[in-house]
C-alpha cells in the first residue's frame, strides 16, 4: 500500500513513517497541507494519515475539500484533540477512523489494515486462496497448514495483488506501492520479489502478462 502521512511533528512523524515502512508499506511524509495537496495530485494513495493541526491550516478543512471533490481515499485522523465532539466532527467530515495521540504504533498498524480491508470490500481479515490461509490482521500466511514467512516487501507486494483480485497491476503500479518518492527503485526489484513469492507460495499464485504486468492467479 502507498500511504500519505501528513504530520508536522518530526519526532512522531519519523516514528510513524518507520513503523509503516516496517510493515512493508511505502510512505510519503509531508508536514504541510499544501505539500499534501501536491502529493495527492501527483500520486494515487491507498490511505492518508492526517494530523488535524498543521502549520498551514486545519486537517478537517483539508479532509472536507477532499471529500467534496469526490476523493474516496481512506483517511485516518491522527490528532491531539481527544474530545468526543472532535471525534464526531472528524468522522462526520469523512474520516474513516480517528486515532488520538498518543497511540500505540501497533494499534496504528492494525487500524491501517482494518480501514484498508474495509475499502477492498472484505472486512474479514481471514482470506482463503487455494491452499493458502491468509490472516491480514496478523500478517500471517499458512500454506497447507504450514506457516510461510514473508519479508515486509514481499508482504506489501502480496497484499497489493490480493487487494485487487483478478485485476492486472502494471510493474509501475506495483513499484509505487512498494516505494515512496524518495526511495531508489532498482529496475528488476519487482521481478525478484515476484519470483521469491512464487517460490514461497506456489508457482500458480502470480500470473504474468508479458509486457503488461501481474495479477493474482486463480486459486
Amino acid at each position, binding site marked *: 500500500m502507498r500511504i500519505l502521512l501528513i504530520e508536522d511533528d518530526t519526532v512522531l512523524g519519523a516514528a510513524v513513517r*518507520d*513503523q509503516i515502512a516496517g510493515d512493508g508499506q511505502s510512505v510519503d511524509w509531508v508536514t504541510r497541507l499544501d505539500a499534501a495537496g501536491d502529493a495527492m495530485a501527483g500520486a494515487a494513495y491507498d490511505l492518508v494519515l492526517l494530523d488535524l493541526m498543521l502549520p498551514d491550516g486545519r486537517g478537517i478543512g483539508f479532509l472536507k475539500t477532499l471529500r467534496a471533490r469526490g476523493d474516496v481515499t481512506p483517511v485516518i485522523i491522527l490528532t491531539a484533540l481527544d474530545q468526543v465532539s472532535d471525534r464526531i466532527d472528524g468522522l462526520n467530515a469523512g474520516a474513516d477512523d480517528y486515532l488520538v495521540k498518543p497511540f500505540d504504533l501497533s494499534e496504528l498498524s492494525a487500524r491501517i489494515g482494518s480501514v484498508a480491508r474495509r475499502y477492498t470490500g472484505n472486512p474479514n481479515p481471514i482470506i482463503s486462496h487455494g491452499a493458502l490461509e491468509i490472516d491480514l490482521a496478523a500478517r500471517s500466511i499458512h500454506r497447507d497448514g504450514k506457516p510461510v514467512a514473508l519479508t515486509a516487501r514481499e508482504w506489501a507486494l502480496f497484499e497489493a495483488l490480493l487487494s485487487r483480485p483478478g485485476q492486472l497491476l502494471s510493474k509501475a503500479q506495483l513499484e509505487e506501492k512498494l516505494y515512496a518518492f524518495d526511495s531508489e527503485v532498482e529496475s528488476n526489484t519487482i521481478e525478484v520479489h515476484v519470483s521469491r513469492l512464487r517460490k514461497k507460495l506456489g508457482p500458480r499464485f502470480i500470473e504474468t502478462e508479458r509486457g503488461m504486468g501481474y495479477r493474482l492467479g486463480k486459486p
Partner: protein
Amino acid sequence: MRWPASLQARLGLFLGILLTVLWIAAASVTALILRGEMDEVFDSALQETAQRLLPLAVVDIVGREEDGLTQRLGVIREHDELFTYIVRDAEGRILLQSHTADMAVFPAYDGPGFRLTATHRLYNEDALQGTIRITVAEPLEHRGSVAREIRMGLGLPLLIVVPLALLSIVFAVKASLAPLRRFGERLDARNARDLSPVPGGDIPSEIAPVAATLNRLLDRLKAAFDAERSFAANAAHELRTPLAGAIAQAQRLQSETGDMAARARAAEIEATLKRLTRLSERLMQLARAEGGQLRLDRCSDLRIVARLVVEDVARTGSPGRILLTLPEAPVMSDLDPDAFGILCRNLVENALRHGSDAAPVDVTLTRDGQLIVANDGPVLRPETLDRLTARFERAGASGDGSGLGLAIVAAIADRIESPLVLRSPRPGAASGFEASVKLPIDDSIASSRSGLSKH
C-alpha cells in the same frame, strides 16, 4: 452612643430624633410668639374694658347723693366673671366694684397703666384729675389656660406625626434599599464557580458604583480563573503531540533493537511516558470539568457518546469486558457531550482498573438519564468510599491510574448539581462496586417508549 449597623435603623433613628427636635423647636417658637400676640390682645381687651367702664362709673358716682359709699353691682345673670374691677377715689375708698371682685387681688393704686401681680394682670385708669380710679383685673390663670391649650394644640400632632414620619422613613428606606437587597440575594444564591456579572437592576445610583466595582472584580476573577483553566487544558493538550512522538520512538526502539536490555529500557520509558500521558489527560479533563460551560443550549443523544466511549475503551485493551446497555429511545440532554464523554470514560476506566477481571463491567444508561457503571470486586469499606472522590486518592495499593478519575467525575456531577453515588457492594449483590450519576435530560424529547435493549 453607637449607631446601629442597619442603614434603615440609622436613618430612622437619625431622622426621627431630628424631626422631633425640629418640631418641638418650631412649636415652642410658635407658642412663644402666640403668647406675645395673645398678651397684646388680652391687654388691649383689659384696657378697652377699663376705658369703657370708667365714664359710666364717673357718671354713676358723680350723680350720687352720698360720697364715699361702696356700691356692689348685683348679678344680672349667673356667669363666670373673668374681668373684675373696682373703682376707688383718691383716698382709696371703694366706690364701685364688680360682684365677684376680691379686694385682695387689687393692690394700692399707683397711677394709670398695666400692672402685674402674682395672680393677676391689672389695668389702672383714672378720671376727674385722678379722683376716680378704676382698676380692672384679669386672672393670669385664664391666660395660662389659653396658652396651655395653644401649646397642646401645637404639641399633640407631634405624638401622631413623629411616629408616622418614622414609619414612613422606615418604609421609604426599605423600599429604596430593596434593589440592593435583591442584588445581595442574587450574589448570595450563586455557587462558587459562577463568576458571571450580577445584574444590578434598579439599584440606587449611590450604591451602583459598588455593584459595578464588584462586577468588575468578578470579571477579573473570572478572567484569572479562565486563564488558569485554559492554561491547564492547553498545557495538557500541547503535551500530547510530543508525548506521542516520544512514545512512538520508544516503541520503534523496542522493535528495532535486538538488545534485550535496551528493549527493556525502551519499554520502561514507554510505560513512564504513558503514565505521564494519562496524568496530563486527567488534568485537562479536570480543568474542563471545573471550567467552561457544561450545559449547552442544544441537546444531543447521550447514547451516541456512551457507545463511542465504550467502543474506544474496549478497543484499547479490554475487548469483551464491557457490557453496554442503552435504551431504545434517544436520551436527549443539554449536557456537553464532551463532559459526558469524560464522565463516562472515567467511570468505565475506573471500573476496569479496580474491578475483578472475571466479570464484565456493566455500563447502563437509563431512559431517565441515569448512568450506572458497576463492576464486580471486593467490598469497599464506607470510609474508603468517602475518600474515593478526593484528588490523587486511589483505592487499593495499585500505583496504576492517576487517582483523578473519580475526582473528575465528582467535579462534573457537582457542577450539574447531581450527586455521584458510590455504593459497595453493588445493589442486589454481595460484592462489587457501583457508581451512578443522574444526568440532566430533556423530557420533552425523551420518547414515551420504554424498555432497554442490549448492545
